């Protein structure tokens, strides 16, 4: 597979994952801030900005300002509309590699987010609808991808993009919350804290899964355990890292480049989550999560060195 093609598939997938994550976080928090005083709400939105891959240089004036910028504002590179536009642009460059069904799906999504530049009042009323159908569109794309594309090299680059992004954005979101919010290791939560922490679970689509695992008795320690270390929940960090590792192994096998740097980095991160215990990490959780964000970015650059932007001399020697 051409390196440029791998690059586009990888980023197409990362941008879609980013858009879905953003849509869910905005949706959950919009709901959540309705229950709070305006000054609390402003602090709340400010905190969400800290969890973005590149914290933007603006502060939200109000909830609707934040929502506008985070969803349809094309000037903001992290907005849902910008991410989906970038995903589509990447898909267009590899039109011959993806299935027609995938191309149609990503276009449907693109037209959906671009068609939503409406007046502020209407916009507020339709926000929930817009966000849930965006999430639905990205999930549809993932389903169509799995059902119509050969699970070969290209598909593994798509997987890799999705899970590198998920690892990084989930870790960043958790890190900010565990750093900025007061929390007590194993106490029962008061009402306002309860709302706050359930919001975090919902932002990772994890509240129902959490309840099935631990019952609705919400404790911060369990949240950390579930979202970081659970290996069966698809939006936990452990699960995502396992998928990264297995896609990297499949890619290494196909290209005959086993034991590359990306493989080793992912293996090390996976081992720390495979064998890690919540008691060991809970004390230094923000630092641990920062470490995960850093390692996800190292894996990203190692993939580039190995498959995409390698020096030509090394290619000719091989």
């Amino acid at each position: 597979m051409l390196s440029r093609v791998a690059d586009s598939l990888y980023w197409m997938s990362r941008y879609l994952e980013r858009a879905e994550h953003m849509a869910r976080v905005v949706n959950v928090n919009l709901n959540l801030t309705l229950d709070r005083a305006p000054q609390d709400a402003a602090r709340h939105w400010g905190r969400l900005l800290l969890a973005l891959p590149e914290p933007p240089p603006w502060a939200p004036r109000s909830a609707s300002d934040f929502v506008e910028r985070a969803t349809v504002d094309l000037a903001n590179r992290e907005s849902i509309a910008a991410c989906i536009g970038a995903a589509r642009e990447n898909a267009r460059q590899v039109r011959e590699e993806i299935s027609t069904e995938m191309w149609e799906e990503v276009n449907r999504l693109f037209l959906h987010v671009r068609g939503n530049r409406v007046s502020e009042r209407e916009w507020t009323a339709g926000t929930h609808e817009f966000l849930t159908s965006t999430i639905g569109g990205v999930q549809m794309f993932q389903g169509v991808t799995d059902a119509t594309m050969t699970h070969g090299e290209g598909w593994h680059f798509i997987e890799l993009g999705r899970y590198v992004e998920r690892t990084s954005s989930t870790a960043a979101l958790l890190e900010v919350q565990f750093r900025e919010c007061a929390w007590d290791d194993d106490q029962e939560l008061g009402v306002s804290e309860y709302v706050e922490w359930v919001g975090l679970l919902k932002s990772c689509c994890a509240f129902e899964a959490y309840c099935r695992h631990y019952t609705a008795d919400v404790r911060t320690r369990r949240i950390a355990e579930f979202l970081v270390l659970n290996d069966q929940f698809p939006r936990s960090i452990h699960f995502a890292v396992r998928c990264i590792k297995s896609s990297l192994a499949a890619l290494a096998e196909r290209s005959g480049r086993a034991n590359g740097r990306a493989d080793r980095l992912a293996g090390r991160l996976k081992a720390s989550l495979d064998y890690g215990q919540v008691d060991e990490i809970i004390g230094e959780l923000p630092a641990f999560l920062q470490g995960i964000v850093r390692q996800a970015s190292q894996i990203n650059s190692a993939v580039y060195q190995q498959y995409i932007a390698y020096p030509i001399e090394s290619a000719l020697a091989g």
Partner: protein
Amino acid sequence: MQGVDVRHDVYVSVAGTDLVRLPDGSFAVLEDNLRVPSGVSYMLANRQVIKRVFPMLFSSYDVRPVDHYGQELLATLRALAPPHRADPTIVLLTPGVFNSAYFEHTFLARQMGIDLVEGRDLFVHDNVVYMRTTAGSKRVDVIYRRVDDDFIDPLAFRPDSTLGVPGLFNAYRAGNVALTNAIGTGVADDKALYAYVPALIKYYLAEEPILPNVETWQLGNPTDRQFVLERLDELVVKAVGESGGYGMLIGPHSTATEREEFRRRIVADPRNYIAQPTLALSAAPCFVDGRVEPRHVDLRPYILSGDEVVIVPGGLTRVALRKGSLVVNSSQGGGSKDTWVLSPGVRPPTRVDPPAGA
């Protein structure tokens, strides 16, 4: 191209010849397209759409399929590979997503199952072309290039081109890679050469051309020039180096100012122009704004030359969508139609005449 050995002596492996139908029903060649003719994806896509929309039409006619074009094109390209490369790597070189024919490039790459590459995916080492893949470099044997001559190698041609591959021309000269169509084929489809094509066929092949040319006056010739300048309001004048429906004067549809402008240009540089009679291009019924109306058309079949010459039974019928217009080029707002070639011996269903008085 002097001193370059071209495999099978095939310089043009993909040709698109524009045909028109004259009032007496016979076909004539309007022009040849021998550089990087485009539009074949529309031939295939139109057929797919018509099959979806009017499936019932196909059952009453025996329409010959065109879907195997991709396979034939791949076979043509494979025939051009250097002989010692048993399992050649074939790629389609595109200028990228901003090119107006990008849809066609991705379409053809998918139909053939080959890699669609851009200039930046390729590099040349020791006169061998490689592409950069996730498994390291991979040697490339045949390039179906959809990048114009001028842009294909910044070391040999335009140095400011970022669409090409530095060193590609040398690799080509060394015989390590096949390029198709070959570089410089534009000389053969130049409008100034067009008038001489029947003579070329007679001289080199000792055969009569099967399809005639359209009568053409060379404005470099004083008698022709005199004749044409007196009849600018009847004739079509074309600049030889232009294409896509640009640089044309259609006499009967022109204003006096336009004719004066062309007269001035012809006198200043007569060799740069040719003239032809204004053809009454044949028309086909089109569904426009809720009504069926006639629109002028021409036909471009695609001719593949590799080990043998292959023509897929179909072609691109281009339509001038503006009423009365004779300009069918898609860059001038033209459209296209599905084109059927029926199996020999098939009688179309009996025509049903409208009831009397209707």
